[in-house]
């Protein structure tokens, strides 16, 4: 069971692994969420969802559901 963006703790950084194209929507890629890029978890909303991340220079908020499908290697 590998790590995902959903399993990061606040302040932790991971590198996005190759992901399945069926799961990750094109618009997430277009926002800079690409394989090989570093992703840092900045904040978690009060009810543990959504997540506020910084990836490839972009500050984004995504829902946990999607975050948990993006595999990463923790740094």
């Amino acid at each position: 069971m590998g790590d995902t963006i959903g399993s990061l703790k606040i302040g932790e950084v991971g590198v996005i692994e190759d992901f399945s194209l069926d799961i990750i929507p094109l618009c997430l890629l277009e926002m800079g969420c690409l394989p090989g890029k570093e992703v840092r978890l900045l904040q978690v909303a009060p009810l543990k969802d959504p997540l506020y991340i910084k990836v490839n220079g972009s500050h984004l908020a995504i829902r946990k559901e999607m975050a948990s499908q993006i595999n990463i290697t923790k740094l």
Partner: protein
Amino acid sequence: MKNNSVVNIALVGNPNTGKTSLFNQLTGLKQKVGNYPGITVDKKHGKCKISDKLTAEIVDLPGTYSINPQTLDETIVLDTLLNEENDSYPDLIVVVAEVENLKRNLLLFSQIKDLQIPTILAINMADQMERKGISIDLQKLKEELKTEIVLISARKNIGIGQLKNEIENFKNWNTEPIANISTKIDAEFFKDLETNFPKNTLYKSWLLITQQDYCHFLTNEQHAKINSFKENTEKIKKYQHKETIYRYQIINDILRKTYKVDKSQATDLRSKLDRVLTHKIFGYVIFVGILLLIFQSIFEWASFPMDLIDGLFANLSEIAKNNLPEGAFTNLIAEGVIPGIGGVVIFIPQIAILFLFISVLEETGYMSRVVFLMDKIMRKFGMSGKSIIPLISGTACAIPAIMASRNISSWKERLITILVVPFTTCSARLPVYAILIALIIPSKRIFGIFNLQGLTLMGLYFLGFLAAILSAILLHKVLKIENKSLFIIEMPNYKLPSFKNVFYEVVEKTKAFIFGAGKIILAISIVLWFLASNGTSSFKNAEEFITSKEENKNLPEEALQKKIASYKLENSYIGKMGKTIEPVIKPLGYDWKIGIALISSFAAREVFVGALATIYSVESEGEDVGTIKERMASEVNSVTGKKRFNLPTGMSLLMFYAFAMQCIGTLAIVKRETKSWKWPILQLVGMGILAYVSAFLTFIIFS
């Protein structure tokens, strides 16, 4: 170049890049808001003098992260840039990027550039480069991107002149594409594509294939041709992903050579503010505080100008009556047109204040934090964090609120938001509430601080939100729509709001309300006046009939006139209509006069007060016209002999107006946004039943 040529310029860019600031700088007060043909997305456009010889018609396209649209607003960008038949098809494009997020901004730029329309890159907020430790090798970047670049600061009016100078020369710009998509992805596939669409640039053909559903301008023949390429949708999807990754590779390579950030220079204000504003306790406290401030100001600050407007229009009617020659035309002006216009103008203070707040919250970047804070909660009700903005806007007017739901990408979340927004207490309900509360609730203080009337009003607002939430939960359970939600929001950096942007936004939204809803209100006021001052034969013979009656022989002149007027109203067209529905509304505690007001406010609620005013002033023709409230307070129930507007009737009316869907403007916009009559009809019927039942129960409880 001939004298005074006009070129079409499209402004394209990510949200939060200051694109609108640039648009405001270029066009100033010469900007207009129109509609794109066939859809209701606002099209902001305006004229700008580029040089003595060149004038530009500039269109501010909706902010988008990519040319592949996710939301309705974004399809406009695609449509404008691909459809050469479109009136706003650009001669040249200005892509606005922000210096801090240049990498992501360049993705959109690279897509636009590949369309091979003359394109220039304007890098905004360049004045902050030093402070943020950013340096750019501009010459090199120009070469690599094969484009002209201008560093600007739209807010500070820096670089705008230079941008205009460059635009003058647009015919000489390099229109080579940046990304060579064909060889990098599937040379054979793209070769085939190229031979099949020889007239188009390759990237345009590729977009036609991937975005066919959004390209409304295609002919059937073109559709068929495109479909032949789309047999393998998985392949197309894979190629889109590959394309995006490839574009980012190119951009990364270019930026590595040209763009440097010295991190030690960067300040950490953003994360400090984020920690407070999205905190699990303070975050909500601050949000609730801001909401209270907004509502407080809608009531407190707006009441003064509203009273002023109210008084002004009452005086105008009086002046018109006294100074114009007597006759039908004067009556139309004094009793139809002037109160009609007044009924629209009176909402301007509230609407302007609300949009002032919303615009400031969006400008500062705070709104994204609210969306972030509220998303999980709103999802429990089948909505999205983004539904917060429509729900708050709904307290001004449901029409712009429903339009603000466009950036919700999930259809189910968006539909539920659209369906429940009309429950929020819009400003059209306020005058109805205000007058009824003043009539039936005593102005007492409770615990020495809370005004009972104020509390009732608060309660009605709360009721509106509660109804919205409860019906959202119900819809969430009932609607069987696959919920494919793509919730990705950018958290922009905080910035101070620009006065100019806020000002234009408020003016634009207020204008849209006046000319949209205003037309309906004015038209109804006039129709209503006509229906009330014309009627069947008994209406025409009213004077004769009443005077000839035995019992009236000895009445003084004044009382006689009153009797005639009231008989006239009863027999006017509108009186007949009110009488017809009286049996239906009697259980709610209403008589035929209130029935008239209900019928006329079916199209727009705020007409209620005006309608009663018209009815009572028509009735007391020629007499001193006191304010509406005094007239209503003195109205007597002909059966019981007590006051017409007593507690049971008043409360029942409040419930009716809280829930009923009485707004043709909203129904029309829901029809357009959902592309079906099903949803507005559901709203009309569902809210109507709820209104009737709750008004009925309320009347029984309070009687």
